[in-house]
């Protein structure tokens, strides 16, 4: 081997002319070098990725992981996290409610929590239906796969097709009032919006910014095998949903307060709300309904019942009303 190589080298030195072996040599060397660099890098990043979601760490530790490890993980795919089609999804647990701090900030967070859980009382002036934020964002806005606030907060500012501009988080919240709450938009800087932003900001304590966290939004279901069908959906509704939301979809009240929210009609979200998209509603329903039995409906059932829910009249999308 060394003999062959030295002879060949001598020959090259002497003749100083091109030899076809150069091509082979360069290609082989490139492959070898690339292999040495790439294989361990891939192994390391995979190990890191696997370890993150399964780590059974207490909340405080989990929250601290993202700050030093996530940036490295996010650089891997080579495109910005928020626009990439395949974003690395990171585990995150929001801080415990008992960890809400004192002082002015704590006050704002607590007010935000109250508005979120009891919008009817704490943001009455801006609500035009019978809903509370928590109806679609379960567990006080904390539950994964139920559009949790901690996962939403750090994704803004973001461009939204809905209003074709870059939205701040405050503007995003305003959209909830306009459509999902069928109400009036609280003025920017109003105590309601400041409180809700504080609550979200607090809940995202320690979350990496601009990274898609696992459990963000509602799960995206695969395309249904059969096109969503109102008649099938009605059956699903009657068997699983009517007990709480009523045969007429108008929810259930106890002493004038809704325990189970109305799903359509004048007291429900309007035609501009995200929940009116069948795929959005289907994702929410499959993951979270019936309450306490999330994940028990088949995806097809979820598509069908979402279609059924949205086949009923509801307040019109305010964008379609000419003032």
């Amino acid at each position, binding site marked *: 081997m060394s003999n062959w190589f030295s002879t060949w080298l001598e020959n090259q030195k002497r003749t100083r002319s091109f030899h076809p072996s150069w091509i082979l040599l360069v290609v082989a060397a490139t492959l070898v070098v690339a292999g040495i660099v790439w294989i361990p890098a891939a192994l390391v990043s995979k190990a890191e990725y696997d370890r993150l979601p399964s780590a059974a760490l207490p909340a405080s530790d989990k929250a601290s992981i993202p700050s030093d490890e996530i940036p490295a993980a996010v650089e891997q795919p080579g495109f910005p996290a928020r626009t990439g089609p395949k974003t690395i999804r990171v585990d995150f647990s929001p801080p415990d409610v008992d960890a*809400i701090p004192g002082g002015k900030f704590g006050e704002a967070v607590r007010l935000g929590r109250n508005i979120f859980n009891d919008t009817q009382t704490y943001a009455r002036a801006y609500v035009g239906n019978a809903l509370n934020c928590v109806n679609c964002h379960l567990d006080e806005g904390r539950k994964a796969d139920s559009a949790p606030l901690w996962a939403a907060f750090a994704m803004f500012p973001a461009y939204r097709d809905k209003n074709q501009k870059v939205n701040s988080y405050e503007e995003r919240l305003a959209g909830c009032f306009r459509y999902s709450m069928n109400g009036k938009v609280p003025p920017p800087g109003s105590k309601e919006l400041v409180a809700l932003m504080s609550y979200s900001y607090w809940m995202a304590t320690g979350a990496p910014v601009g990274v898609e966290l696992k459990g963000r939004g509602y799960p995206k279901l695969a395309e249904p095998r059969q096109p969503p069908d109102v008649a099938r959906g009605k059956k699903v509704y009657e068997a699983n949903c009517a007990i709480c939301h009523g045969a007429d979809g108008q929810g259930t009240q*106890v002493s004038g307060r809704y*325990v189970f929210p109305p799903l359509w009609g004048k007291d429900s979200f309007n035609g501009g709300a995200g929940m009116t998209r069948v795929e959005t509603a289907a994702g929410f329903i499959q993951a979270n309904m*019936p309450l*306490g039995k999330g994940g028990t409906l088949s995806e097809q059932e979820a598509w069908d019942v979402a279609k059924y829910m949205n086949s009923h009249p509801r307040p019109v999308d305010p964008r379609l009303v000419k003032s």
Partner: protein
Amino acid sequence: MTSTPPPRPPLPLQRHARAGRLTAWAVLVAGASLANLAHADRAAGATIARQGAGGITACMACHGAQGEGQAAAGFPRLAGQGQAYLLKQLQDFASGQRKNPQMEPIARALSAQQMRDLSEHYASLPGWKAEAKPAAAAQPAGGARLAMAGNWDAGIPACFACHGPDGAGVPPHFPALTGQPNAYTRAQLKAWQAGTRGNDPQGLMKSVADKMSDAEINAISEYLETPSFYGRRE
């Protein structure tokens, strides 16, 4: 000269109207007699509760003079519980869907009418009311939290999310929980886990009970006996 036209056959609409009137009468008469039959007699229920009837023990012997239950023995409060819920429990004891050695023979001995009377009677009694001042004994913190916020890490929704904001029940399906003896709530949660109680609509309660730890069952049962609502909103 004009000849009188032959009488026209009634228009289809008129025919329908006649048939409609007849049907309406029939429905009214049938409905009235049915309502009479189904009418639950609160006073008759009260009598059975007080004295028993034909081999049936008086309900108050176990469930208390005012239907308040018996904490030590774990006999549940019936006063103020939803009528439809109470009726369904009696029917389910009789059918064996809800297993209980004391209640099964009693429920089997009751007629349908007596079941209606009794559930009407107990539903009409005043339900549990929170004391004006907070309970003196410290509340188990975990219980209050489960009741108002649940434990979503384990997939457990807040009890009050379905049983009403104060746990006072959401008729007809979701019973009142507050003021129930500690031992009763605990036994029910255990019964769902064990499958000896299987009469919850759509298996909703079983799916929740199955996710609860023993510690959680203890905490919630203790809390619901004399719940304090302090701290719900800060």
